[in-house]
């Protein structure tokens, strides 16, 4: 069959019929440099009280990271993936949300959960060998910490979508690392979010490494924020150590989502000051000078300099923040020193709403074993 047999076929030197430019990519593309507030003059526009609150949260967060790391040395935590150096992102993620919103942290983001109100001990159960999620996700609207990378992103999309369908005013903010952006789930989640116009904000903390693998082996993109345009959502690039900038960008994105504008992808450029976890040896894959350069760009120092310069933070406020942080740390230390009591019989309690006959048999077997042990 040649063309003659295809009815209606004729010459048409025009773009293919169904094709039209779908959207203008220009506004979706991120700035060419990470957005900053501190030291740029833009900070003058900022709400001083908020800035002081963020400062206190950063100080508390830094202390929390230090305390949790110390707990690994004392054997009270099996492992701790520290967010030291990334506190601006962790804190801003929590603070940018309203009460009814949901946070979807990755395994590194216990601090964000804590900053949102989760009890620090409950946030750490997973990491001390206790139950996988120590808190009820509904209480503070914080999903369980997600260990399989990027898998929490579609959850955030689904939850936000469900809330929107129900007519509820709920935004979900999902956190993921630079390494996690390579996973298929990252792609699928962003795509669903954009197609559904779900009220979600994706925060990528680009801390330069996925365990030992540097960003250059993870992606060849101009920036991770550039991925946004491929989904038809805006991408924002922000200095992840500038808490005012991260807070502003996230707040904008949350507002946009809340208003029905759909999802945003935010890449926060930051750095993991500590090793991947206490079990990791970072000297195997990175040099001191790189770490030193980043210590110079510390989120707390950046903020303190700005606030002090503007007369918004005095010695007393710094001291107060420090004291509050110490108090939190002392409480954490003390409560983590108590040996948790886990009931082995609970192993069978939550697999299903009702244990299956098979689980009831197994439960009886363990019960008998424990009774025999106790009797012996």
């Amino acid at each position, binding site marked *: 069959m040649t063309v003659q047999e295809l009815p209606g076929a004729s010459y048409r030197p025009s773009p293919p019929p169904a094709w039209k430019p779908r959207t203008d990519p220009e506004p979706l593309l991120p700035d060419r440099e990470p957005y900053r507030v501190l030291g740029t003059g833009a900070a003058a526009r900022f709400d001083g009280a908020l800035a002081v609150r963020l400062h206190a949260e950063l100080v508390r967060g830094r202390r929390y990271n230090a305390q949790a790391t110390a707990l690994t040395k004392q054997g009270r935590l099996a492992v701790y993936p520290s967010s030291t150096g990334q506190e601006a992102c962790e804190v801003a993620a929590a603070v940018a949300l309203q009460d009814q919103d949901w946070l979807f942290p990755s395994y590194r983001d216990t601090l964000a959960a804590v900053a949102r109100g989760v009890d620090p001990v409950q946030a750490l159960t997973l990491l001390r060998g206790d*139950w*996988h*999620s120590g808190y*009820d*996700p*509904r209480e503070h609207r914080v*999903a*369980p910490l997600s260990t*399989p990378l990027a*898998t929490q*992103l*579609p*959850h*955030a*999309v*689904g*939850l*936000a*979508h*469900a*809330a929107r*369908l*129900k007519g509820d005013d*709920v935004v*979900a903010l999902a956190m993921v690392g630079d390494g996690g952006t390579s996973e*298929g*789930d990252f*792609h*699928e*989640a962003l*795509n*669903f979010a954009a*197609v559904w116009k779900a009220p979600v904000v994706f925060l990528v903390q680009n801390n330069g490494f996925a365990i030992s693998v540097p960003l250059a082996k993870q992606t060849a993109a101009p920036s991770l924020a550039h991925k946004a345009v491929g989904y038809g959502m805006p991408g924002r690039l922000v200095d992840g150590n500038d808490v005012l900038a991260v807070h502003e960008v996230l707040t904008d994105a949350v507002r946009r989502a809340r208003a029905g504008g759909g999802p945003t992808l935010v890449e926060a450029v930051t750095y993991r000051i500590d090793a991947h976890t206490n079990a990791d040896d970072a000297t195997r894959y990175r040099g001191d000078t790189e770490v030193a350069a980043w210590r110079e760009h510390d989120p707390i120092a950046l903020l303190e300099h700005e606030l002090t310069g503007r007369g918004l933070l005095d010695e007393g406020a710094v001291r107060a923040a420090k004291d509050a942080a110490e108090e939190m740390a002392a409480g954490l230390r003390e409560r983590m020193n108590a040996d948790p009591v886990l009931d082995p019989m*609970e192993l069978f*309690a*939550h*697999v*299903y*709403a009702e244990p*299956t*006959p*098979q689980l009831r048999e197994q439960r009886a077997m363990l019960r008998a074993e424990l009774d025999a042990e106790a009797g012996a």
Partner: protein
Amino acid sequence: MTTVAQKAAKPATMAQALGRALRDAMAEDPTVHVMGEDVGTLGGVFRITDGLTKEFGEDRCTDTPLAEAGILGTAVGMAMYGLRPVVEMQFDAFAYPAFEQLISHVARMRNRTRGAMPLPITVRVPYGGGIGGVEHHSDSSEAYYIATPGLHVVTPATVEDAYGLLRASIASDDPVVFLEPKRLYWSKAEWSPDAPAAVEPIGRAVVRRTGRSATLITYGPSLPVCMEAAEAARTEGWDLEVVDLRSLVPFDDETVCASVRRTGRAVVVHESGGFGGPGGEIAARITERCFHHLEAPVLRVAGFDIPYPPPMLERHHLPGVDRILDAVARLQWEAEN
């Protein structure tokens, strides 16, 4: 659990019963949402979801982007917010991209959160062969699901069960992998869509045919084959009992063992590959429980341990009446091994 008075029955297909179950569940419970590839406008490639978008709107029955992990992953989030998603995987093998979500989250969220966050998700998977499907369209993937604690695994073999078990699965507060035997989609039975029978809880096997010589234990697509084999066996002088498991997880040890203790002999029949398939589990647990009642080892008739074959050869792969009867014949065997 819903009980409705029986009304006049007329012939219906399993596909119709499944569609009706979805419709009724959606009508009764506004939190039930159907989602998947082509489930909306098209009504699904098997037309199970036909009409749902029209009746309930695109938000209740949604054509998703083409990404199975994304479908199941977003369903997790929707369930976390209180919805009851019913997810369609277009074919057995196209559920594989969603495995990580299924194993690492769907099956574990309740346990992880110590009961705080159950996930009432139903994952519908058309499965099995016998329809002349091209590669990846005929897998029996139940072995993967039953080895994943936290999931219920359910599969109907009759029109009535298709309705009842799907309703029960959607009503369950736990995730259910609902395996639909695709070659039975067009099987028919007298069944009244307007008056479906009581919805039983999942987990109960049923004796489809009583007999005294031996028990055939099966489920899903192999039930009709076993019924046929039992009929044929009569001419050989065997009176076979046939048990339809209906639910692989939970497993109904009681019904199965009661039958085997009565007959003293059993053959497990399924399409899924033999090695590492459900039959091993079933045979092992029967033996553990009924050893001294057994006159012969529990035998298995299963698909070969090969990737699903080209359709032109599938009849050699699928358990058929002859192969079942051969196995029954071997139940008499008392040799030196």
